[in-house]
């Protein structure tokens, strides 16, 4: 097992390196950031001076090598736009994004897992049909539209929650709902189909025949096995939500890393974009690793050996 983790971490380094090359290349293709940092009417000499100060006159490979050399030491350089260490800016904004993502995913799980199980247990009932409709809606509604709808109803009409910003728990509710809706629908669908599959298994029938209480059969035997695909999707969802929080953060003026990233991309803030991508990619890789490790707990038959790679 420790060998497996080390191998995975080494693989991840390769992934991160690849991501950084692609992002670096793409960013430089989009054009010169000095033009966006200076006023439109700025003279050519001011532009030249700033380019030199930012080190943009050097050949691309040299700029990349410099970036990489610093990045391995945890230094992503100064953000062009904010003139602050890129990592500091991320450290300031990442907690807000993690908070929102966790809340969105938590909300999705709390609602979706019981709903999916119930729908499976009461297959073809009214409840099942209602769940299917909810899943359809959840997956079809754009987060942008849902966000504005939530603001209109719960902030403007009912006055229950703030419309925007990050001011305590109340302000987390609406963005978490908007962000979690899509995942909620997907998780409910997975929970239902996973549960249906497991309930049809022989061991469930055997357990029932042995007279074990229905509650135990469902929650002890069936659910644990139905949880394996769920864990996969929850892990993936967390990553998707981290990246997908951009729109939710913009609508609800949530001060997270997603908004920082969008601003950084629009202003061609190379160091900041690179740092955000590196941090998010690392998080994604770690989450995937954790998911793989959770499998072994859920299904002891899964063993990570060199051949199981």
């Amino acid at each position, binding site marked *: 097992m420790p060998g497996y983790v080390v191998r995975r971490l080494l693989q991840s380094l390769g992934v991160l390196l690849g991501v950084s090359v692609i992002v670096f290349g793409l960013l430089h293709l*989009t*054009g*010169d950031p000095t*033009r*966006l*940092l*200076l*006023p*439109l*009417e*700025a*003279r*050519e000499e*001011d532009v030249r*001076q*700033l380019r030199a*100060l*930012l080190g943009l006159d050097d050949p691309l490979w040299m700029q990349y090598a410099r970036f990489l050399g610093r990045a391995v030491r945890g230094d992503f350089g100064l953000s062009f*736009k*904010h*003139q*602050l260490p890129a990592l500091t*800016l991320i450290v*300031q*904004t990442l907690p*807000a994004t993690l908070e929102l993502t966790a809340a969105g995913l938590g909300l999705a799980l709390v609602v979706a897992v019981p709903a999916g199980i119930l729908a499976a247990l009461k297959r073809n009932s009214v409840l099942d049909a209602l769940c299917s409709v909810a899943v359809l809606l959840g997956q079809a509604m754009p987060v942008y539209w849902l*966000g*504005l709808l939530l*603001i*209109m109803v719960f*902030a*403007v009409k009912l*006055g229950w929650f*703030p*419309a*925007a*910003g*990050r001011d305590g728990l109340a302000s987390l509710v609406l963005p978490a709902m908007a962000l979690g809706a899509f995942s909620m629908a997907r998780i409910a669908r997975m929970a239902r189909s996973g549960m249906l599959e497991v309930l049809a298994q022989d061991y469930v029938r055997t357990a029932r025949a042995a007279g074990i209480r229905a509650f135990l059969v469902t929650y002890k035997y069936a659910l644990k096995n139905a949880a394996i695909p769920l864990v996969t999707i929850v892990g993936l969802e967390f990553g998707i939500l981290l990246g997908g929080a951009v729109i939710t953060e*913009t*609508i*609800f*003026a949530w*001060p*997270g890393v997603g*908004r*920082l990233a969008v*601003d950084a991309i*629009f*202003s*061609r803030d190379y160091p900041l974009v690179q740092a955000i991508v590196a941090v998010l990619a690392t998080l994604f890789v770690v989450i995937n690793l954790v998911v793989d490790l959770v499998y072994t707990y859920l299904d002891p038959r899964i063993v990570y050996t060199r051949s199981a790679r």
Partner: protein
Amino acid sequence: MPRTLTSLATVLALLVAVATAWAAGERDVTIAQGIDAEFLDVQMTNNIVTLIINGAIYDTLLTRDKQLQIVPHLATSYRLVSDKVWEVKLRPGVKFHNGEPFDATAVKFSAERIQRPDFKSPQKGWFGTLDRVEVVDPATVRFHTKVPDPAMPARMTLMYQMAPKYVAQAGDAQANLKPVGTGPFKFVEWQKNERIVVEANDAHWTGKPTVRRATWRPIPELGARIAALQTGQADLIVNVPPDQVPMLQASKNVRIEKVPSCRIISFTIAQIKGGPLADKRVRQALNHAVDMQGILDAVLLGNGKRLNSWMPPNVWGYDPSIPVYEYNPQKAKELLAAAGQSNLTLTLQAPNGRWAMDKDIAQAVAGQLTENGIKTTVKIIGEWGAYVRTILDHKTEDVAMSGWCLPSLEPDHWVTPNLHTGEPVSQYSNPEVDKLMEQARAEMNQDKRKQLYSQLLRVIRDEAPYIFGYQQMDIYGVNARLKWTPRGDESIRLTEIGF
């Protein structure tokens, strides 16, 4: 007696209630804009939203009153000693928030800091004519300019004053995170993309500010910004689109405030590309072929004022006697025929979301040109960085939607960057116009200078380097408890807010 006691108790209770409400933020204000401040080191920015926020913390040497006239501020007076020397008297007894005195040394330090080669200030160009700053005595400085510069007073309205000792001790980075100025408000906190809080500086030289505490919140999404106003989460919001005005006016506790902006929007014709657009008659024809008033009424619901040339009435130098182009499709056809361009086809580029209803206006303009025989296709470039690149690389389409407002409100800053030969933004070249601009920007006699601008703006109108558009209307949503009217320079000053 019991009645007297009851009355007394009632009055007391009322007083307590008022005092509590007062203490609990009755005089606090929350302002929601689309973006966060870029810097709280005011010398690191040229962004208007950032400058607005910094204006609470820092003072400038001169400033503009509500009518946008230049008036004394930290400088009590200024005079021209010779064509290239301006002498400025400074207000005595002013202190920075950290107790450091404001004097001539601070003025010299602040001006020189911007020009420091390792300091990445985008304001370098604002003070490009400044040669050196001479400290005459603690209350007097002299600005020596490289060339005669009548725009110096306008430049002084942008000379924000930094605390020399504080910046030297704390360093540039810290000066940005914990700003210290002489302004009417002191910095409290900055949570990136969340809020900036300032509190009243009761020791300010203008007296105690009415607003006690102000919070600036960046709320990028328009719908959320409007909701924040409706729910009382924000007291003042910017950039309300015209079509949302009736809905907000119907809301309780909310009112709409409008002011004609310094920002002007027009359609740059790429004359330097040559071809048909190099012919003045073709450019004039484009102006006659667009019913700009009709577009303003239909798309912006009347929230815009037509331009007669390339300058808004808010800027000194504007000449109201210059007529606007008349909508006259017949005349347009005649001009095109005379130029031998009866089958002209064009592409018009526009951004999306940069200015109020920009894309819709661009489509309406293209529609009218097409209707009047000039087949025009619209190309939307949604990403602002890419849009800017087409302008700076001089690779715009035939016609490009353009907006302009600079906080100096100096007339030369409207014409030279946009129309002088070889300027980065300029898509136009004409030696006669260049000469007039150069004369006007060096003329130290105000009356003569005004005449020169009038002449210049007339030539520009006739030359038609733009399809002349409109002066934008700035629309704000305001909580009814605020006594406030907007300014025509896009600025929001906390000291102008009452209750």
